């Protein structure tokens, strides 16, 4: 459907995106990386807002520059920070963008009603956008991207500013929408895409790091994630020698989730190998040590542990 052939974007000496090759089919692609890795630049190039310094983006055999309007007609794009007219109502703003997207007035009107209902803004559709909260504006942005039922939907941090309930609602909406479409969803909030993304694209140091399913990614850490309880003082020593994924204080102890690079045969082996850690361990909690199944957040933290 969409092929990115060795895409590079440079600003003078700085390379924002380096030599990315990707083939994207229908489904939800989660674009995951810390801030500044080049996600937004990559999405902007796919949205035709930026031209790659080298490489080409091909859609159905033609470059997107060649296709021009025909390509943009298939596109729904929600930028990270999208512009809006403060004095417009949601309906007027969406009608304006619908006109830009080439929709006729009647189709646009019914689609706008439908979308505003879907994103939960039907009650405030006649209020000016300047009175909207950040989350409400974000939902207007999502609605505008979906106006034309686009074949390619590009979402750059769409859930920023949404509360957990709104995020869950959005995931539901997207799961329904994504059938027969290509959705590119950029975020650094792992939980947003863990359950809905068919594939995860990760960028590291401005290059493509991986393009895999959640399962494939989690498999890479299988047998390496452990959790344990330890005293706070012991944890401080422990954290110096292990890569800790999360820490949760619990009364007089802390619950630690961490990575062990080489898979041990038993917990005792880890304890035995690491004399300092052994010293710190509280024997009474040894039974709480257990091997965990990795999740996407573990993978994300592990991959970007140096950044």
């Amino acid at each position, binding site marked *: 459907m969409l092929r990115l052939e060795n895409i590079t974007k440079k600003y003078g000496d700085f390379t924002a995106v380096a030599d990315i090759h990707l083939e994207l089919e229908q489904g939800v692609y989660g674009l995951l990386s810390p801030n500044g890795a080049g996600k937004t630049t990559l999405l*902007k190039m796919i*949205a*035709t*807002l*930026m*031209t790659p310094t080298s490489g080409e983006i091909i859609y159905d055999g033609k470059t997107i520059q060649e296709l021009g*309007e025909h390509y*943009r*007609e298939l*596109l729904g*794009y929600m*930028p*990270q*920070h*999208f*512009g*809006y*007219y*403060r004095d417009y109502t949601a309906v007027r703003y969406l009608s*304006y*963008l619908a*006109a*830009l*997207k*080439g929709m006729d007035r009647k189709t646009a009107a019914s689609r706008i009603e439908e979308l505003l209902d879907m994103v939960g803004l039907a009650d405030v559709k006649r209020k000016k956008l300047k009175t909207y909260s950040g989350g409400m504006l974000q939902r207007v942005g999502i609605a*505008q991207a979906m106006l034309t039922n686009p074949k390619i939907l*590009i979402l750059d941090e769409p859930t920023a500013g949404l509360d957990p309930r709104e995020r869950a609602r959005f995931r539901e909406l997207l799961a329904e929408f994504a059938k027969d479409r290509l959705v590119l969803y950029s975020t650094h909030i792992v939980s947003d895409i863990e359950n809905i993304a068919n594939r995860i694209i990760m960028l590291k140091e401005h290059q493509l790091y991986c393009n895999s399913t959640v399962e494939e990614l989690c498999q890479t850490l299988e047998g390496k994630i452990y959790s344990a309880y330890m005293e706070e003082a012991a944890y401080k020593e422990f954290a110096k020698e292990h890569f800790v994924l999360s820490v949760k204080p619990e009364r007089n102890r802390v619950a630690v989730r961490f990575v062990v690079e080489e898979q041990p045969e038993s917990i005792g082996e880890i304890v035995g190998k690491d004399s300092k850690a052994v010293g710190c361990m509280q024997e009474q909690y040894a039974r709480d040590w257990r091997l965990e199944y990795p999740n996407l957040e573990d993978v994300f933290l592990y991959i970007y542990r140096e950044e």
Partner: protein
Amino acid sequence: MVLKEFHKIWNVRTLLLVVIVGGALFYSWVMGQMNLKHLPLFETVEVEVGTELLKRYGTQLDASELAQIQILYEQAEEKLNEVALSAYPEIRDMGFESYQELEQYCTAQDKTEEELEAFFQTKEYQLYEKMLEDSTVAWEVETCTAYQSIITKAQVEKEIEKIDTVSTLPESVQMNVGFIIQDYSRILLLVTLMLVMPYVAMENRNRVYPIAAATKTGRRLMLHQIKAMLVAVLLLLLIFNIIFYIVYQIQTPYTRFASCKAIDLWFGWTWSEYLFIRILMLDVWALAHAMVVFFLGSFCKTIVGTVVMALPCWGMGELAGLYFFPHLFTMSYKEYGRFSSGIFGANKYFPVVTEVFVLGIGMLLLWLLYQRRKREDIVE
């Protein structure tokens, strides 16, 4: 899309601002320069003399008619003398035979500054001043000056332009209307700026273009915006032109000279044709000015930047509007010979060629900026 953009520009708030400011400026100007009651005496007299000549001889004065003007001038001098001597018999007591003799005595350029101080205190000079303040005498004095100015003009036309005829259109009318048009040009540019600038600032502040650029027709948004802006400005100009026309017709006595040939102008246009073309060109200029403000403003990222950019733009527009068009129309050796020098020699087309060249360079620069902008990435 053009209509949607038009509604953004032509909204109640902007329109109200434009109408209030434009209206206030227009009113103050109508109550001043364009008001017959506020014309200086010399101009009122020139208009009256011109009107009289128009009735008698038509729009042009030929050689035989100019000879009669000489007679009229002499009659006016006699009348002035009669009026002055009957109202101020002390002229004779002072040893002068006529008003003209006293005038010659008082305006002679043969005194040093110290002598002048003492001279202003003399009873002869005091009387001369008193007479000039007397409206009856002053009217007659200005009548003589009006005839004299026609005679001088005829001599100049004959010597320099080699023309035997003179237009009945008084020179002061042409000059005053020149000032009126300058003011009008200033108002037009200002209201255009006030209409366009909030629109550009709003677009810059809201930054909808990146989102629009990823839509089917969003890349043509700027074109739609330019079209909408031009329509809005055109509509505004039309309203102001209608007001100007009505005020000009009602307030000024200048309409009497509509069919006179204008002095020093190209193509032998009549005064009304000349005014029509001047206003039309001002409108074109205001549209071009709006385009420049819009285009340069679109490069500014903040409202302050837009304002900072727009004001010099207005200044430049005004400067060009005030001097470019008058220069374009009044081409003669008399006025422009002094500008021509160096390799160009005394070429009467030099100023206009220079101005067109500068304008051309400006337009080329805008075009290059536009081309560069088209190639740039769209940033949020």
